[in-house]
């Protein structure tokens, strides 16, 4: 498979992730979408590393994975707190602040 195929795959995953973020009403679903977007980045990096034949991309990937974990952990924590306070995790019911 060519590099382009991997990049296309990554782009698709990224797009699906973004679509999820934009359309899911449940906050957890949105978090999943974000996870997908970061995974697209990982696919990209790994593909580039493979085709360039160096380790740098893999190193980058490791960092990205770690960071994704941190992000999502924080995200989940926030969702939990929200649930405690608001008794809901529906994204479009969280509109106290606007204008």
């Amino acid at each position, binding site marked *: 498979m060519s590099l382009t195929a991997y990049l296309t795959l990554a782009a698709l995953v990224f797009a699906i992730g*973004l679509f999820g973020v934009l359309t899911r009403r449940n906050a957890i679903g949105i978090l999943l979408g974000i996870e997908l977007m970061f995974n697209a980045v990982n696919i990209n990096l790994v593909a580039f590393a493979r085709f360039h034949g160096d380790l740098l991309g893999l190193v980058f990937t490791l960092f990205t994975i770690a960071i994704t974990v941190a992000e999502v952990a924080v995200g989940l924590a926030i969702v939990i707190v929200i649930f405690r306070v608001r008794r809901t995790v529906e994204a479009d019911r*969280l509109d106290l602040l606007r204008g």
Partner: protein
Amino acid sequence: MDATVWLPVLVLGLPFASFVLLAVVAPLRRAGRAAGAVSIAAIAAAFLGAVLVWSVGFTREATWTWIPADDGPTATVGVLVDPLANAMLVLVTLVSLLVQIYSLAYLHDERPPSLGRYYTFQSLFAFSMLGLVLSPSFIQMFVFWELVGLCSYLLIGYWYARPTAARAAVKAFWITKLGDLGFVIGIVMLWAATDTFEFRVLFALAQEHALAIEGLGTIMFLIYLGAVGKSAQFPLHVWLPDAMEGPTPVSALIHAATMVTAGVFMVTRAQPLFALVPDVLALIGWVGAFTALLAATMACVESDIKRVLAYSTVSQLGYMMAAAGAGAPDAGFLHLLTHGLFKALLFLGAGAVIHAVGTNDIFRMGGLFRAMPQTGVVFIVGTLALAGFPPLAGFFSKEAILAGVWEADMTGPFLMLALTVLLTAFYMFRVVFLTFFGRAPAAGHPHDPSWTMRAPLWVLAALTVLVGLRLALGDVGAHHGPGWLAPLSVAAALGGIALAWATYQRGVVDPGGLAATFPFSVVDLLARRRYGLDTLYAGLYRGFLLSFSRLIGWIDRYLVDGVLNFLSAWTLRGGDLLRHIQSGHAQDYVYGVAFGVLLLFVWSQWWPR
């Protein structure tokens, strides 16, 4: 400075010093009669100076820089003394002096501060009028021209608490200002073409035929417009009758003897320039004659003694202008001088009458001759002079004008002026008969005024006679028309007197019936409505100027400013609309990011490289 310069400057400076003193030292002004004394002393000294200048009779010009500029001054001020100015100097200081003395008694009921104000203005007027007379340049003449206008405004509005006086004052100012617009445009154009305002230079250019400026006719016409306003020529004469709201001595001085003649003086002074534009001269003549006739008809139907005199002033100014237009400015100027004497006399006499009976209405007077014989005598002397009765002063000057106009082949104006002679005699004797003879006065115990008022009357009466005799003996009047002229004019005057006698003294002719017969009925109707001119001006003022200004005011507030407020309101509203994109939904914010990324991509592709 030698005496030929400082003497006229002194004549000019004395009233000015008096004015400054009275204006600045408030206690002196508020003292009233003391202020009057200061003013009278100053004008008396100026009168002596003027007589001295006149008797020596030299010609001298001196100028100083007024508005400097890089290459020579833009404007100068100075004094120009020549026979023309000398005669005016004497007239102005004399009448001023007499009027100021007369006013002491006439206005003795005024509160002292008001009287002080009166004399302050009188001093200012004397200064301004003398400055005008001594002007060596158009610009100085214009400066003082406006200043005398100011004095006129202030003195008409002397009793400012009266609405009519307040209205008359601004009316006078506005109407004369209208003429002055022409004046100022004219001299600006003249300056732009010749780089000077000075008569000396301009006359020299005119003499060398070097004044071939494009549009000189227009320029001179515009300058003449100033005289139209100031000397109450048709159609700007409407302010003068209203100006009678001022105290009578003011009417005598400013609105009869001196200020209103400034226009005539100016045209006379600038004769070498006007002579270059015959069309304008002809216009001046026609307008002058027409004014004379028009005003005379209005005088015939007026019942207010001062307004009759005011119309007569307008009429006589028409004579003077007609003379100037006919190329006989010296005749006009002579009439200016004589008219200054006898019209002041008439006004002061009328003042004495009004003072005595407390009304202006001639139909509410009558039989006053017995009560106030001295006033009656001098008034009749003045009336005869005005009617052009030999050997009084008015006869000779009027005759000279008629001769001049006849010689200039201006038949139309001549006929109008001749008819005016008859009308003049008629309306003046109408006043005399109604006031001094006939029925007894309605109320009060009129009597001759105190000597401070009587003395000026007698002085003026004496001068009217003396000048007349001097003219009869000497050969001053340059214009002697055809032989039939003098008899004609005397006959016309007599006819007028007879008509007045028959109508108002004897009652042979019914004035109402006369006015109802055909040719007179039209004139009567129009004249009583003042030919609609006052209405026209009022209509223009209210209907056009004020409405238009309201329109502009509306446009400014609601359109020009409206657009601004529209923009700012929309900016505010736009912010309010725009903040709705901040919906509060987290996913919409992510849409924002997505949209932003998209925007960056599109932009980077489409941006013109």
